[in-house]
């Protein structure tokens, strides 16, 4: 059957940078309550670059693979460059995502942007107990 791209399956089966980042300088949780996907993205910014990035989460293969891949993509990159990253860049890196699932694929990127922003909007979607 024509299933997911190999890169998605690979990152889903063997997630990279999964876990918490104790000395994170930025952290954000994004959830898609419609499907229950939830991703926490933590970054450590040092000298204007992403020194480390980690994620934890629950959800579908696409959102978790995307989170895993994203941490790889940004680690070591200057923050300015990471901030310029577009939705399309991540989708392309994932090898393409069916359009019904774009919101899953982009959930980690939303979390990353909030983690990098000094002041993100207040979280409205989930109570802290859920995270």
């Amino acid at each position: 059957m024509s299933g997911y791209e190999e890169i998605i399956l690979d990152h889903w089966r063997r997630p990279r940078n999964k876990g918490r980042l104790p000395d994170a300088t930025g952290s954000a949780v994004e959830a898609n309550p419609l499907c229950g996907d939830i991703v926490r993205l933590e970054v450590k910014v040092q000298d204007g670059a992403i020194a480390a990035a980690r994620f934890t989460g629950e959800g579908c293969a696409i959102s978790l693979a995307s989170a895993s891949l994203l941490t790889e993509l940004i680690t070591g990159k200057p923050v300015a460059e990471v901030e310029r990253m577009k939705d399309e860049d991540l989708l392309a890196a994932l090898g393409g995502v069916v359009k019904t699932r774009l919101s899953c694929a982009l959930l980690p990127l939303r979390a990353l942007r909030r983690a990098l922003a000094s002041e993100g909007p207040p979280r409205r979607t989930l109570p802290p107990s859920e995270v």
Partner: protein
Amino acid sequence: MDERIRNDFPILGRTVHGKPLVYLDSAATSMKPIPVIEAEARFYRESYANVRRGVYALAAEANERYEEARGKVAALIGAGPGEVVFTHGTTEALNLAAWGLGETRVEPGDEILVTEMEHHANLLPWQEIARRRGARLAAAAVAPSGELDLDDLRAKLSPRTKVVALVHVSNVLGTVNPVAEVAAEAHRVGAIVVVDAAQSVPHLPVDVGDLGADLVAFSGHKMLGPTGIGVLWGRNDLLAELPPLLTGGEMVREVWLNWATWDDPPARFEGGTPPIAQAVGLGAAVDYLRAIGMEAVRRHGEELTALALDGLLARPHVTVYGPSDPAAQGALVAFNLAGIHPHDVATLLDQEGIAIRGGHHCAQPLHRRFGIPASCRASFHVYTTPEEVNQFLSALDRVWEDLR
């Protein structure tokens, strides 16, 4: 079911991702047969006008068609036409029920009893009423089997219980609830019984007399009818006491700048221009279903459910939710593949042209009850074939191979 039935549903001839469409999401909404599509189109082409107030012949004709549809729906559920209120869907019907009972029956300190397996449409309106009226909302538990825990329900019934609102057939578990039994107990404490029949009226013979409820809600679009129309059936004397949810034209007698008097039911609850063409379409859907026979519709649903359950239960990596007994269950199955998110299952099946739903099916508390964020659901209607169920089962095996 007859091959001819399938030919009545033109959309079933289409392909998705280059594969023939296998539509297994009928619990979300059913497909429409030509006679329904054509009834609505013909009405616009030949007899259309606004209903009720028109003095000219065309308006009378349109009104007759509208009221004829009401009569057909009434006959389907064993009711009188005056007890059938056309709404825009189950959701509006349940909001109307909750609003009206909130205004007339629920006092501070009273209780409203729902169940853990309610669709959001039969939960949120009661949350709102409970909040507004200072009442308490309680929920009868669902047993691990997916059946209603009747002991828990009984324990939560009290003379303070003013409303018992429950789903007839769960849209996730498929559970057919013993509504008549619950209604009898609820009536014993003086509660009004509201039934969400969105998943039962389209699939089983339902007689509101036998059901024993006071208010019953369902949607046209799940029973081969158009979107944009639904029904609230109510006992005459109860409808007569309820205030309207929507106010405006066509539901009043007399209007002054500062006051107005309501018309009688059902008009009182049909403020504004109603879904006229949709009523005509729903009437045609009722004709279509009754020509097949609701007993036959039910049998077909049971057969497909049995086939799907057999297949799913035989696969150790599949968890099935609900009674897993076709005779006690609506025409649907909910399940999960171990460690795989339902959205992934649905996306991968979709690549093969198979449309199932993955998600919480507007029943978040129920999913939480089972400790899962979401589930897969395959659901059927008269046009679904055993071959399609088998295709679905083999495709599911390929998903499992691919992802595990």
